[in-house]
């Protein structure tokens, strides 16, 4: 079971970090996986684990103990692959190959299998013990041959393949910084101060914090820097498996030191309340609230896809504030879609329903917009230039101040794998295109607070 799945179990309260640590040690000693170890130590039953993973990833579960794999399915998966990936072929029907896995989040592995076999892979979740038993039965090999380190090391497992570096910079005096690496290996800070920090910037920061403190109450300044530093050591991109259990333990502790939580404790207010204000000026996005190009408004030309480096510049440290609601306004929404047409029709639909709408044509603009003002919900199209919707979602969900914002994904086609990727990226839900106004408003009513 991969590290992030263990984190998920802890986050969802199925087990504690301590139980994960103990089970990891137990598993290393006895050569079994974490799922089996958790069950062996009595922290959770196999059935609970299977049901949890099935529900989390929208993948059906199956009792493979009670079924026999047909020969044609067995013949499609090489023995080495089955043992290495810890999976059991179940059946083949036409273009579909059903396989049983204990970790349904390993999207890349499933993609690989599709490529190897030329089939549509339909995963089902089964317990580690059942899979081990079947592997032994079919391949005459001890299930203990399971290659756990491959989980992360094979690669770019799951959405981690998206190459998103969500570490946050230590130089928190620059304010609220999204830092990510795009698909071309280019690294971006959004927004990144070009003034380079330094005394002036720090002084401005302090001033802003004081102002914010006067308005919002004491204790805001000083909490964020500690938290940023803490978060820097946390993150899915950390690829060392040297001490998985202690890393998990540390992660859990760090969550308690998350800036949002600290702000809550100090202020007794929602962490998404304004901390300070700032204004983005600069190269790409002149208008403060509408991140579509000023030249095209909500359309007329598509965003400039060739200018990922033109990240906005901040003059003063910026921390996001939430849009203030006015009478009759139901909340604020950020729409991220490449198509000006889609942005426009979504804007019409949502404004008619009383929502304040900001739109962005790509992930860069979206992050700059969030930096300016935190919306109550974000609609994200999967196909975006520079970084796709999964990446954007993951960046948003990895930041303490934005992780609570519900993200609803928009996509033309959503298959089983897409659903899993969406889930893994942390999105609340998805809407398939085409959609009418009701689908959008329904999502807002369901998820926006």
């Amino acid at each position, binding site marked *: 079971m991969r590290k992030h799945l263990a984190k998920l179990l802890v986050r969802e309260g199925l087990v504690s970090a301590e139980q994960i640590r103990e089970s990891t040690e137990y598993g290393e000693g006895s050569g079994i996986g974490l799922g089996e170890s958790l069950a062996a130590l009595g922290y959770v039953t196999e059935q609970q684990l299977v049901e949890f993973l099935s529900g989390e990833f929208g993948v059906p579960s199956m009792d493979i103990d009670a079924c026999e794999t047909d020969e044609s399915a067995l013949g499609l998966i090489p023995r080495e692959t089955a043992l290495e990936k810890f999976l059991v072929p179940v059946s083949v029907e036409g273009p579909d190959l059903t396989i049983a896995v204990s970790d349904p989040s390993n999207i890349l592995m499933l993609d690989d299998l599709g490529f190897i076999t030329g089939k549509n892979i339909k995963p089902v979740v089964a317990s580690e013990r059942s899979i081990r038993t079947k592997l032994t039965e079919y391949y005459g090999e001890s299930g203990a041959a399971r290659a756990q380190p491959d989980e992360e090391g094979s690669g770019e497992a799951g959405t981690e393949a998206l190459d998103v570096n969500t570490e946050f910079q230590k130089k928190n005096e620059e304010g609220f910084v999204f830092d990510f690496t795009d698909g071309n290996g280019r690294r971006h800070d959004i927004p990144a101060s070009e003034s380079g920090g330094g005394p002036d910037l720090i002084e401005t920061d302090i001033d802003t914090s004081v102002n914010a403190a006067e308005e919002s109450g004491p204790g805001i300044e000083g909490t964020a820097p500690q938290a940023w530093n803490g978060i820097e050591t946390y993150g899915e991109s950390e690829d060392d498996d040297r001490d998985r259990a202690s890393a998990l333990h540390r992660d859990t502790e760090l969550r308690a030191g998350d800036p949002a939580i600290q702000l809550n404790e100090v202020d007794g207010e929602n962490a998404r309340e304004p901390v300070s204000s700032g204004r983005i000026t600069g190269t790409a996005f002149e*208008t403060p609230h*509408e991140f579509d190009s000023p030249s095209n408004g*909500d359309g007329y030309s598509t965003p400039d896809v060739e200018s990922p480096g033109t990240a906005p510049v901040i003059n003063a440290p910026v921390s996001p504030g939430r849009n203030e609601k006015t009478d009759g306004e139901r909340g604020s929404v950020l729409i991220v879609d490449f198509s000006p047409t889609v942005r426009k029709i979504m804007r019409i639909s949502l404004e008619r329903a009383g929502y304040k709408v900001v739109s962005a044509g790509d992930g860069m603009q979206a992050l700059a917009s969030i930096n300016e003002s935190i919306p109550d919900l974000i609609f994200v199209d999967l196909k975006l230039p520079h970084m796709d919707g999964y990446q954007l979602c993951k960046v948003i969900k990895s930041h303490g101040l934005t992780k609570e914002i519900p993200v609803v994904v928009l996509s033309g086609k959503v298959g089983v794998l897409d659903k899993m990727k969406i889930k893994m990226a942390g999105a609340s839900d998805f809407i398939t295109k085409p959609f009418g106004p009701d689908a959008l408003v329904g999502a807002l009513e369901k998820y926006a607070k």
Partner: protein
Amino acid sequence: MVRKFFVVDREGDNKDYGQAFEPVPGQVSEDEVGLETGLLLLLSELALLMEELREVKDKEPVGSLQILSDTVNKVAGFAEESLGGALREGFLPEALLDASGSFSHLKLLHADRNRLSARTAINLYGGWTGDADGKNQAFQQISLGMVRVLESYLIYIAEFFTTPCLAQEWKETLEIYINELSESVRSVVYR
């Protein structure tokens, strides 16, 4: 039924076209509300077709001809359904004829029972014997001609909004769509 409408200008600010910068509620008829709801869904469908066009253009450029004719037919169907008897009879052949004044190759397309067929053009694409530049030019003309037909339909539909701010907003919205589609069509290289 009375609904409150605001128009959003290019800077994203609420704007009333009668009294600048002051959003003013207007009386909007049931018919307009219904037309708007239908158009929102229609444009969502058209945007998806446009996405397919972008996907297909590099792999199989001829596929974009089919997508464009499907797009025209979808809008033709919507116009019939939502406007009913208010839709001029023979609208499609007329629009096709008008557009062929600017895009002469459009005569390769046929309108049958108010639906457009690109079959002849698609067949011609496969059997093209002329030079590559000529081929690209001819099929670009046909594609842009179909966009012009589409534009005629959408302008006609938008005229059914009688509330000024609503009419203006939908005129702009449909322009946004037509411009985006035109840009996508121009990026297709028929080789």
